[in-house]
C-alpha cells in the first residue's frame, strides 16, 4: 500500500492535465488557476524539501503557486490525511457513478467526483505545487 499514494498522484495528475478539458458541463474548479500554476512549478521539484523530515518545531517552508508557503507541522499532518481522504472519495464517486443505473444519480456522482478532484488539486498546491514522486504508467488501474 505505501506505493499506492504515489501511483494515485500520478494518475490524478495525468487526469487533471488530460481528462479535465473533456469533462463538459462541469464548472471549472475555483482553483483552476492555482492548479495550473502548481503544474508549472513542478519541473523544479528536485530541490523541494521533504516535509516528512522536518523536526516539527519550525514551520515547514515550501514552494507553491509561485510563492513560498509556511505551514505548521499540524497543518501539514492534516493536509496529508485530507489529501488521502479526497483521493479516496474521487475513487469512491467514480465507482458510484459506474455502479448506479439512475442517470440522475450517475450525473450527481460524476459532478461530486470532479469537486473532490479539484479539492485534491487545491490542497496539493500547499505541498509546494507538485503532488509528489511521479511514476507515470504505474498504478492507474486503481482508479477505475
Amino acid at each position: 500500500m505505501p506505493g499506492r499514494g504515489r501511483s494515485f498522484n500520478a494518475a490524478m495528475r495525468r487526469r487533471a492535465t488530460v481528462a479535465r478539458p473533456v469533462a463538459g458541463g462541469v464548472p471549472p474548479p475555483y482553483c483552476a488557476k492555482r492548479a495550473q500554476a502548481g503544474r508549472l512549478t513542478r519541473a523544479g521539484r528536485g530541490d523541494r524539501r521533504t516535509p516528512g523530515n522536518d523536526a516539527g518545531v519550525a514551520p515547514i517552508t515550501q514552494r507553491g503557486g509561485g510563492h513560498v508557503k509556511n505551514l505548521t507541522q499540524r497543518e501539514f499532518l492534516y493536509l496529508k490525511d485530507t489529501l488521502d481522504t479526497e483521493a479516496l472519495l474521487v475513487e469512491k464517486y467514480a465507482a458510484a457513478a459506474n455502479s448506479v443505473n439512475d442517470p440522475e444519480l450517475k450525473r450527481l456522482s460524476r459532478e461530486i467526483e470532479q469537486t473532490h478532484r479539484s479539492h485534491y488539486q487545491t490542497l496539493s498546491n500547499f505541498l509546494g505545487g507538485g503532488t509528489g514522486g511521479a511514476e507515470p504508467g504505474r498504478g492507474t488501474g486503481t482508479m477505475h
Partner: protein
Amino acid sequence: MEQRGMERSGTEQKGTEQRGTNLSERSVVHDCLASQKMINATYNSFIEESATADLRRDLQVIQKQEQDSLYRVFQAMNQRGWYKTQPADQQQVSQARDELKPMPPS
C-alpha cells in the same frame, strides 16, 4: 418518484449481480452520504487547527462545497424516499418555547 422507488427495490437484487458489486443503488448513495459527513468533519477539525491564513481561507471554501455536495446527496435520497424526514412534534416545540429562559441583561 413513487413508481421509480418501487421499481428500484424490486430489481435491486438482479441489478447488483449485473453490476458486479455487493451494494444496491440505495446503499451506494447512502455510502456517499456517510463519506460526505466524514470529510465534512475532517475539514471542520482542519480549520480549527489551521493557523495559516490562505490555507484556512481555501479550507473554508472547500468545506462549503463539501457541505453543498452533502446536501445534494441528501436531496437525491430524500426524493427517492431513501431518507425520510419527520416534522418536529409541535406540542414539544411549543412546550420548549414556553420553557425558554430569559437571557441575562447585557
